[in-house]
């Protein structure tokens, strides 16, 4: 059996059971007068059924990904940097945090040279600030970096 299908089947079955409990607590009502938990309960039954189907069906060949082509560290850096970006955007402001995000992405995820990373990040963050904050009037967080009057 396909390992992914087996894992997802178990998750769907367990998720379905948990969802059924939640649906029951929300009050499913009756089939004459459905309550707020009625539809979630139906989804729970569907999910559990599909989980069983995935567990029982004969699996197909699993497509293996060659470890050489995988760039796990780059993916982890990309994910961590975006997570960090969302946490500091309001405090640092759009310009500084976007510049930092782009430098990290370009330098460590895409392994560009320092100069390319720096200038691309500086130009892209400044241009997008002007386009969105000044021209499109999107209230992007200013942060501590002083912006010209009227921006």
């Amino acid at each position, binding site marked *: 059996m396909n390992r992914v299908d087996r894992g997802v089947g178990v998750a769907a079955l367990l998720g379905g059971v948990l969802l059924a409990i939640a649906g029951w607590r929300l009050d499913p009502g009756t089939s004459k007068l*459905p309550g707020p938990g009625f539809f979630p309960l139906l989804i729970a039954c569907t999910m559990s059924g599909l989980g069983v189907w995935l567990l029982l069906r004969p699996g197909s060949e699993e497509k293996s990904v060659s470890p050489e082509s995988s760039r796990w560290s780059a993916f982890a850096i990309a994910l961590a940097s*975006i997570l960090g970006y969302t946490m500091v*955007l309001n405090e640092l402001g759009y310009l500084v945090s976007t510049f930092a995000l782009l430098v990290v*992405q370009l330098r460590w*995820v895409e392994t560009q040279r320092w100069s390319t990373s720096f200038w*691309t990040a500086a130009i892209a963050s400044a241009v997008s600030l002007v386009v969105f904050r000044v021209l499109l009037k*999107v209230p992007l967080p200013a942060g501590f970096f002083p912006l010209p009057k009227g921006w």
Partner: protein
Amino acid sequence: MATTLAPGNLLVVFLGVVIGTVIGVLPGLGPTASIALLLPATVGMDMISSLIFLAGIYYGAMYGGSTTSILVNIPGEAASVITCIDGYQMARQGRAGAALGIAAFGSFIGGTLGVVAVMLISPFLAEAALKFGAPEMFALLFFAFTCIGTLVGKSVARGLLMAALGLLLGVVGTDDIHGVDRFTFGTLYLRDGIGLVPLAMGLFGLGEIFYNIEQREKTGSVLAVPKNLLPTRKDWKESFGSILRGSGLGFGIGVLPGGMPAVASLMSYAVEKRVSKRPERFGTGAIEGVAGPETANNAATAGGFVPLLTLGIPTNSVLALLLAALMLHGVTPGPLLLLKWPHVFWGVIASMYVGNIMLLILNLPLIGIFVQLLRIPYAILSPLIIMFVLLGAYALNNSIADVFMTLFFGVLGYLLRRFAFEPAPLVLAFVLGPMMEVNLSKALIMFGTGNPLYFFTRPISGVLLTLALALLSFPLVRGLAKKLSPKA
């Protein structure tokens, strides 16, 4: 037509198709993520302008996708994957001009015939749909749900599971009927439900980028753009039947829920190979292998507007976002659209004619310029796309929570892509789910007996539910038949 031909709207159509073509040319940012990204920017536009702009992006992307398939062997978007097979072989044999030319003309013919069919069919379908009550609407949505789950993706069980997950995400928030909070975990943010835009941008935008970061594939070299892009008389003769078949097949598939342009192009390729007198040519540079699929994906794009505009049912994730765009402007697509907002309906139809003509006029002479975009290294492009996705997510409601939500769905989209799960059923079920729930509740209350078999006592809902059940049981019956048949 006068609405579309207004100078402002002509400019909007032009911008839409150019942006769409660029998106189609550039790998890594498909039409779903791009429309999700640009959706907040259209809030300030008037209703018709925003819709024709977004629709222009959609069919522009279908045109643009073929260019990279033919010249680089990399599909710009999913519907052009199949074009790589014969298109790239033709280019390697020095016939890139014929491949690009027939792809553009095929797209134009398929798109235009598709629009004519939309125009002819929609008013009748809308009139018929006016007679639909809650049981019929529920049955229709259930049929759509099963089509989406079973037709999209490689495995029915996986497709249906994605659709079920979409339904679950759709119930998050305050219940419209009873006013009860469901799965909000006590947060104020989730009371309004999960937003379609963060969900689509995350699944299709960030998810795709994460996957590309982790599984970086080497890109091929860009083949030169030939000067002559006009197909010869022989090319036309070989492609004519494929273009006609592709138009009919593509439109038919586009109308079906789950009938994405990618499915249409794939099926067209299979049909062309089957009807060909020399099927062995397919894969070695057969022009029919380019003409059929490219026509079919554009015809399917047009076909998808029939259920969207007349029934309010999106058949793919891009159309789900167009539905959101209409709703942002207070328009509820469905049978009443033609009665209440005829200018929206006919404005969109007219813009599709104009857009198709613009694409043909623009694309052939400008292919060289669009191809230059491929010289921008993906390593530079990828961080910029991330920046725009995050910016788009923030600009939606000026909220960090939307950015977090986009990131969450980005990770989910990456995992789905990594383990070969198709995200489209999730998005479609997410959109259809709340409508399904409301109509199911109304129908059950209307029956007053609590017996769901009453759905089968009404002809339309009975037929639709029977079709849906047949579709669901087909894989089980097939599996059983396989088991019971004696081994060869």
